[in-house]
């Protein structure tokens, strides 16, 4: 693709994703089990007066939920893009390699030990995610470790952490409000208070990720070439994995074990605009945000009056996509 055509593609894709993100976010505000009209939504946006019930729905129900979906989607998709590059593994994502489960177990343990300490939950989630990321990183360094081996190790870790989470919930069922939703990933009952700290971590993490995107591109050239170009490869692999753990952990702390957005979205972005991390990271963040807001919207209204946790819908989409990736990986013979 010529540089001019590449630039056109990036501008087009960026515009389309930005427009889609705005559109799906606006629709998510006024569509749901309780009806709020477009007019009321717009009146609120421009600072006008609307009924108390409509205001309450928009500010106390819709806003936290939409903001949570935006944050979780951006964080998990960016974390997925970073992890795939750092581990040089297209099958990797925060949920596949066990980072989400590690964060989830840490959140439940923290909730059991210090109930009500909302500020500590993202910290615990980050710690759990980081420990898992380090285990996977150490495994991936082993000579002859294939991509599928890393994935299998992640599945094994997820199983162990999943057993840990279930054990915590059986011993202390009240440890986490909406625990069943947490285990599959969902955004019901979200409050702005719950989002304050994770939002700070995610916004900082996204900005840092954009600053480090150039280094991520150099890492994709392989360890020897990256070193020869002057990059401290080991240090930056670890640092970037830590950043991915921060983003994924912060998202898990309020959205639960939301899977597959970190797998699907970076692949969609790379398919359209190529692998330059300076383009992939911001577009993954935007598309990830739009993707989770859109999926949550569908999960809320498709089976009304019942509401599915968004994680279930995403697992239905992500599972087949993961199988497709495994088959493609085996076919190209570089597993």
């Amino acid at each position, binding site marked *: 693709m010529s540089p001019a055509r590449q630039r056109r593609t990036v501008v087009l894709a960026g515009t389309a994703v930005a427009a889609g993100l705005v559109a799906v976010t606006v629709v998510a505000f006024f569509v749901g089990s309780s009806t709020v009209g477009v007019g009321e939504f717009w009146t609120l946006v421009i600072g006008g007066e609307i009924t108390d019930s409509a205001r309450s729905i928009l500010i106390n129900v819709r806003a936290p939920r939409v903001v949570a979906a935006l944050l979780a989607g951006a964080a998990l998709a960016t974390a997925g893009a970073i992890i795939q590059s750092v581990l040089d593994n297209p099958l990797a994502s925060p949920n596949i390699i066990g980072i989400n489960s590690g964060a989830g177990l840490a959140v439940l343990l923290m909730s059991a030990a210090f109930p009500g300490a909302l500020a500590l939950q993202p910290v615990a989630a980050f710690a759990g995610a980081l420990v898992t990321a380090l285990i996977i990183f150490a495994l991936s360094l082993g000579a002859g470790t294939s991509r599928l081996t890393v994935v299998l190790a992640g599945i094994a870790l997820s199983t162990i952490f999943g057993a840990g989470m279930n054990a915590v919930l059986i011993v202390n069922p009240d440890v986490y409000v909406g625990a069943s939703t947490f285990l599959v990933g969902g955004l019901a009952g979200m409050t702005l208070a719950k989002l304050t700290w994770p939002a700070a971590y995610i916004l900082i993490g996204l900005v840092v990720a954009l600053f480090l995107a150039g280094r991520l*591109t150099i890492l994709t*050239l392989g360890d020897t070439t990256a*070193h020869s170009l*002057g*990059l401290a490869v080991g240090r930056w692999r670890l640092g970037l994995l830590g950043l991915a753990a921060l983003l994924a952990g912060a998202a898990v702390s309020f959205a639960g074990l939301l899977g597959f957005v970190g797998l699907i979205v970076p692949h969609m972005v790379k398919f359209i605009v190529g692998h*330059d991390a300076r383009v992939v990271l911001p577009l993954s963040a935007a598309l990830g945000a739009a993707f989770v807001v859109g999926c949550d919207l569908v999960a809320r209204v498709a089976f009304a009056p019942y509401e599915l946790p968004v994680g279930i819908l995403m697992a239905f989409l992500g599972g087949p996509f993961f199988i497709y990736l495994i088959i493609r990986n085996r076919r190209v013979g570089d597993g």
Partner: protein
Amino acid sequence: MASHAIRLHGVTYSYTRRPLIAGFDLDIAPGEVTSIVGPNGCGKSTLLKIIDGLVTPHAGEVMIGGQPARSLGGKARARRIALLPQGVRPPVMSVEALVACGRYPHHHGLRRLGPGDREHIDAALTSTGIAHLRDQDVRHLSGGERQRAYIALILAQDTDIILMDEPTTYLDVHACHEIMGLVRQLNAAGKTIIMVNHDIDLALRYSDRVAVMAGGRLLGLGDVAETLASGVIERAFHVSVDRIESANGIAYAVFPVKA
């Protein structure tokens, strides 16, 4: 200016308890093409990794242009010495994007590619003869084209010293000679080149000097005539080397010596 481009003094390195390279001394003069040859497992590629700082020697010192290599930061080292690695998996990017990565050591922080960078990239693509492939995906190139793309990457890096780890591996015979011709062109443009070469004929044809290694030690270092006269290749590989002159030039035929 230092009298040597690279100097190794007493360098020792081992992957296991048995040293792979022991008490290794080597001086590489600037402006020459030096080939390092030796039997498999003698430590040739490890030697290049030590020079490029990929592995740290357990003892001894590496000097680059008169300066201790360990005193150079990553980017400072990458502005003086570039490495063409062996058999890397091609990334998913265009040739031009790959070559642009060569400008990384010359950047600070968030600076974008400037006109100077563009000139270096264009010059690297032109001198390696792949300007017409700049928009191609690196994965879709032939072996020879891909090697040229990686050589363009290290040219964009704009270093005085270039290390090449078996630059002709997996290439057909025509592409091998093309790459070696390119090595001579780069040398004529002022680059000091040190390459590990598994092909004795290519090493003798295209190098100014040849370093022969065996068992982690340097058996000899000299120009082509000296190396042939000393019989050091014969001793290291258990082969005999015949120099053949024809209307097309000089070639070296290698024959196994019966025990």
